[in-house]
């Protein structure tokens, strides 16, 4: 699979929690994403989406299995992997006392943007229409503006892969819509977007392909059409429930 930008094989993440004992947050998951597609990781809260994405971004080390990004093994060269991804989640905050321009410049430098940093920053500011807000401190921006800067920060070093963990969580309808539009634009520029959500409608609208996970296990992968075909259900929500029941019958 030459054109796979992200390859995840038999990924397992076990961790020990003092209150809950041993937890298998991710249990033998395999999937891969291609460039120029939006790949959605769909599942309820606590399904293992965040764990999977954090493992891809090398913040967590897998208990077993392999993660490859742009052909690089995440365990062998985590820094090279992080250089080729942009990671965003509802918990990755910005530095409140830096301005939008400073923030973008900072992350371009830290991620080792190969070209002229200043030029790239101005480009992105123009592209996102941040203009008049570029020199305002992040903590004085509105929630929606902050989200925009955050997304710009994720893409500032022009990585081939973007990993977005529940990017629309906590946003109002308009802001969420803007983020979704932005994700589509990034895909159209040839990037791989791996993103997670628990909102079925969002996955239906946005994703080229979907992986459904529940309690750390993969219930199914495919395009929306493929999943519909396999389950015989029109709506993703029904398909999800059907897959869940089928899994239960298997086990």
């Amino acid at each position, binding site marked *: 699979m030459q054109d796979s930008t992200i390859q995840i094989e038999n990924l397992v*993440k076990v*961790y020990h*929690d*003092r*209150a*809950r*004992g041993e*937890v298998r*947050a991710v249990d033998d998951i395999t999937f891969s994403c291609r460039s120029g597609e939006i790949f959605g990781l769909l599942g309820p*809260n*606590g399904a*293992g989406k*965040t*764990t999977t994405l*954090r493992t891809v*971004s*090398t*913040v*967590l080390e897998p208990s077993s299995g392999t993660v490859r990004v742009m052909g690089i093994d995440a365990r062998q060269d985590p*820094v*090279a992997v*992080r*250089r080729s*991804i942009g*990671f965003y*989640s509802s*918990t*990755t*905050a*910005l*530095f*409140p*006392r*830096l301005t939008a321009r*400073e923030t973008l*410049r*900072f*992350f371009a*430098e*830290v*991620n*080792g943007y190969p070209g002229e940093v200043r030029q790239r920053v101005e480009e992105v500011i123009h592209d996102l229409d941040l203009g008049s807000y570029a020199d305002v*401190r992040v903590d004085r921006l509105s929630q929606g503006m902050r989200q925009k800067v955050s997304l710009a*920060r994720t893409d500032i*070093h022009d990585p081939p892969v973007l990993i977005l963990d529940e990017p629309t969580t906590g946003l109002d309808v308009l802001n969420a819509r803007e983020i979704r539009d932005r994700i589509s634009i990034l895909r159209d520029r040839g990037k791989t977007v791996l993103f997670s959500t628990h909102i079925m409608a969002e996955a239906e609208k946005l994703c080229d392909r979907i992986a459904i996970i529940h309690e750390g296990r993969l219930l199914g992968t495919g395009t929306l059409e493929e999943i519909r075909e396999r389950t015989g259900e029109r709506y993703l929500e029904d398909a999800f429930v059907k897959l869940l029941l089928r899994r239960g019958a298997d086990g």
Partner: protein
Amino acid sequence: MADRAGRLSRISSVFLHQLKSVLRDRRTIFLAFVLPLLIVPAMILLSGWITDVREEQRESVEIEYAVVGPHGDRAANMVRLAGQHTAENDTLTSLALKEETPESPLSSLADGELHLVVRLVRSSKIHSEGESGTSKTPMLVLYYRGDSDESGWAMEELGSALEELRTAQRRELLLSSATVTKPDSFMALQLTDVAPEGRAAAYTIGRLTTLFVLFFILAGGSVVAMDLVAGERERGSLETLLTTAITRRELALSKQLIVLAIALAICILQVLNLLLYTSLGLLDSPLAEAAISPARLIVVLLLLLPVAFLASGILLLISSRARSYREAQILLFPVVLLGAVPAAAPLIPGISLSSAVLAVPVANIALAVRGVLTGGVNPALAAVSWIITGGAGIAVSLWAARLMGSSLSPEADVLPTSPIQLRLRLFSKSAPRAFLPMFALVLVSSSLFSDDLALQIIANTVLILLGGSLLLLKRYRLPLRETLGLQLPSPLIWPFLGAAVPAGILLSSHIYRLSTALFPTSARMMEEMYARGIGLDAPLWQLLLLGAIVPAVCEEAAFRGVLLGSVRRTVGSVSAVIVSSLVFGLFHMTAVRFLPTAFLGLMLGLSVVLTGSILPAIVWHALNNALALILSGTSLDPTSPGTLPTLAAAATISAAFYVMARTRSAPSPQVALDRRHRGDG
């Protein structure tokens, strides 16, 4: 090579941007820069003012004294002469004296109606030239009260006036009679400091510099360090950084450099600040008279660099270790105290760099700095010190990098599910705080019932500690048995525990010795403590009940059950055992008992963590107290056991802990409760 450039640009980018961010925080600036700049001179000015006021008071005191004994007239005369002498002599402060004639002078002194009582003793045949050899020197005895400022001043003033008078009289005698009959009785003493000008001041500075610098760095850098990892972790910007192409080590290093830069800036500002106040004449500081050459100053600064680096690394380590900003602040305090210990090395008499201290980071630099400022230091030893302390700084930095990277939990969206879990969570947050009012109450009750030990024990342990603990459990509706951990442990542990009790007493006798060395306790105070503590006249059953069983049950429920159990959920087992034993020590009020009690708490806490139950701790505590009571009644004195018994005791206790760990059947109390209620949301 290309990557080295990349690394430098990453580090400098994080450094510059985060520094900018830090400097834009007004609260940080105020806490780290402005406040210390105001506080230090304010403190110095205040202490100067207090000294002045006391001096003034001292000079205005009229010394009220009485004379006793068979040679009263003679004594009174001498005191009057001394007073006159000070009045006639321009260089002396003249004394205001007032003789009183109370009925019983010594009891008036005790009641504070008099400052001094004077008695002349062993006075026979004074100035008896003819009968040389049999003459006895008169001796004036001044009775004063060490617990009264005025009486103490009166003693010093009159004492030195009498001394002056004696010197003057002798000189006159020497001048009037050409021959010196007894040279030794005419010897006058004069003390002259032959140290070069400023050297004495330099010595003071030399001994204290490292301690002060370390203090400034820890105090000034802490606000920034706690924010840079623990604070950012809470806000989420740490996670953002961890997903960028910077390595953990680069990140830790750049953050450490920020702490270092801020701390050094604060340090330099402090010194400049002091110099400014000194040069304006507002302050007297040894800095002004020390006259340290610029070359030496530069060497000192170079020597102190690794100390600053290490200190900022330690701050960062705490910040990385803590799971929250709050926890970081809790961890900070004991670390700052511990950090001061090696920096105080130059204060210990007779310690030198060419000893084992060379291997102790910070302590070796502190000694080298003292050497540079007061004379000389072996350059090779100084260089080794520099490398050792700098190496420790790098090691700490790497450690912090590791902790920083492993700080994210796999799932962000895991929340407690059942109501009892939520209550348990609230309980573990508020229970430790409840010990503050309990401490205040114990303080009050101890002074209220200071003369009735039985009442004091019942009030402190039963009402305050046990009562407070039960109230907490009731408030959060938690089951008594499972929250405190009252499950029966494996029966196998009891014989080992029985052996561990005397072993523990033996080990703690070492701690006790250390403690009496640190907090000198007068023999009388000890006797008083024992007399009050034992109350040997009480029947044995009463002694054992009040001295052993009641405190064991109540204190274990409070310190090991409630405190250890709740702190453990937020800071982990090791820290919780330490914290609970320190608090346990603090509750015993006296400085000399703090360390031994904390040591006992350490062992008891460990037994709770290992067995998952507080029952072994209750039994251990009770047996420990009972045995200590019985031992103190006998002549058996375990205060200085030899090496072999000590090793045997340590082995016994280790064996007991080993058996506890191996036979453990139940998980820890509150953890078990939490786990059992996991499902029912």
